[in-house]
């Protein structure tokens, strides 16, 4: 399971405050705790102050890579911000979060991915109302993957995110997302699927419980990457258990080692 660590996101209060003060120590600490907790990529999102996203995203890139050698996931819907931040990345190949089927975003983000040899998170999202059913999600994802392949991307560099919407407003949405994951991976062997979890529990109590239950369901349906907070020990314990239960952990070695390392609390 590829873990994209999500904590450095301007939608979080603590990060917004750190961005406001350009608080290097706070960001460095976030990088460090996520790296220690098993992150494979560090996601960087600086988008909360209108007009300052480009500057803040570049600052996050500089600050994060002064601390870690882990690859970065550059997170912005704004192609201008991505274009400014990507050239600053050194070290391992970055990931871009994200591209979708909106014509302008597609046309601008794809060349950036090619130029910077980046992996791509591909949202099953076009223009118009978001795709709610599994079939609609699969249709959009397929169109997007085919366009990316036609442009020279390889499946192993594509992480399809079918998007999940709150089960509190549409009780069928969790099942639609995991069903779409299964179908997309069957249709394009070698492609990855990825998802953030927090949206699924919007508006509900006990959100972390809902998030990790959804994670287990997604893993059961083949999802092989996740945008999560790796410092959430209960979530990580669920991840290890789900991988063991659903045939993704031969001889349950990772699960047992996690136990032996005291991680299954």
């Amino acid at each position, binding site marked *: 399971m590829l873990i994209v660590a999500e904590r450095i996101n301007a939608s979080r209060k603590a990060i917004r405050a750190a961005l406001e003060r350009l608080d290097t120590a706070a960001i460095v600490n976030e990088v460090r705790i996520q790296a220690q907790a098993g992150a494979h990529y560090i996601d960087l999102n600086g988008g909360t102050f209108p007009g300052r996203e480009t500057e803040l995203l570049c600052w996050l890139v500089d600050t994060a890579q002064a601390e870690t050698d882990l690859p970065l996931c550059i997170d912005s819907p704004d192609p201008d911000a991505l274009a400014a931040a990507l050239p600053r990345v050194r070290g391992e190949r970055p990931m871009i979060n994200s591209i979708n089927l909106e014509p302008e975003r597609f046309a601008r983000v794809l060349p950036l991915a090619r130029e910077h040899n980046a992996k791509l998170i591909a949202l099953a999202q076009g223009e118009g109302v*978001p795709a709610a059913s599994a079939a609609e999600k699969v249709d959009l994802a397929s169109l997007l993957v085919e366009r990316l392949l036609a442009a020279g991307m390889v499946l192993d560099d594509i992480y399809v995110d079918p998007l999940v919407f709150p089960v*509190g407003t549409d009780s069928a949405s969790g099942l639609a997302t995991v069903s779409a994951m299964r179908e997309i991976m069957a249709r394009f062997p070698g492609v990855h699927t990825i998802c953030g979890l927090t949206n699924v529990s919007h508006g509900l*109590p006990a959100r972390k419980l809902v998030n990790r239950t959804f994670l287990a369901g997604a893993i059961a349906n083949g999802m092989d990457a996740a945008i999560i907070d790796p410092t959430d020990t209960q979530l990580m314990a669920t991840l290890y258990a789900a991988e063991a239960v659903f045939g993704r952990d031969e001889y349950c070695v990772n699960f047992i080692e996690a136990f032996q390392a005291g991680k299954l609390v």
Partner: protein
Amino acid sequence: MAAILETIKEKCIRGKRVELMEEVKRALAEGIDAKTVMNDALIPAMSVVGEKYSSGEFFLPQMMLGARAMSEALAMLKPYLAQGTYEKKGKALVGTVAGDFHDIGKNIVKIMLEGGGYEVVDLGVDVSAEAFVNAVKTEAPQFILMSALITLTMDSMRKTILALESAGVRKQVLVGIGGAPVTQKFADEIGADFYGSDAHGAVEKCNQLLH
């Protein structure tokens, strides 16, 4: 009479739609007039739902269920209400602004407004400034409620307000904005009339401004 109205209020608050319909029918059969059911049971129920949501006691699905129950009960009462007593409170346009395709928050506001007795025209998602302007001209609403869920599209709110000004219709409507990244400060900055911190807050603001 008070007992059954209390039951109706309770069923509405708890979003028990089927039971609510039965109780409303029973009340009408017992000779309680539709206007009383509306004013003394359903409308107070909706305020309770909104307050419970804002205080954190109710969760989102509970609020939506309550609002749906409310608008279904209102629809059922409509034929029984004497002409003129079923006036909608006001008319509101709702829409997610240009470049933004998030519809969940906007839909919740729509449901709450309908539950609150407003006529709602839903312009959908990715609504251009021109579409808002045209809808103001054709629908003549009292309110425009705009939603944005990403920082990048918040600027579309500013552009829409500017477009309303240059079309000469800005003064005809009250403009409210909301959505996760939106703040009161931003509302002041772009010259919106109000900011709704959640769906209940948005409806409350509309109610206050109406008076």
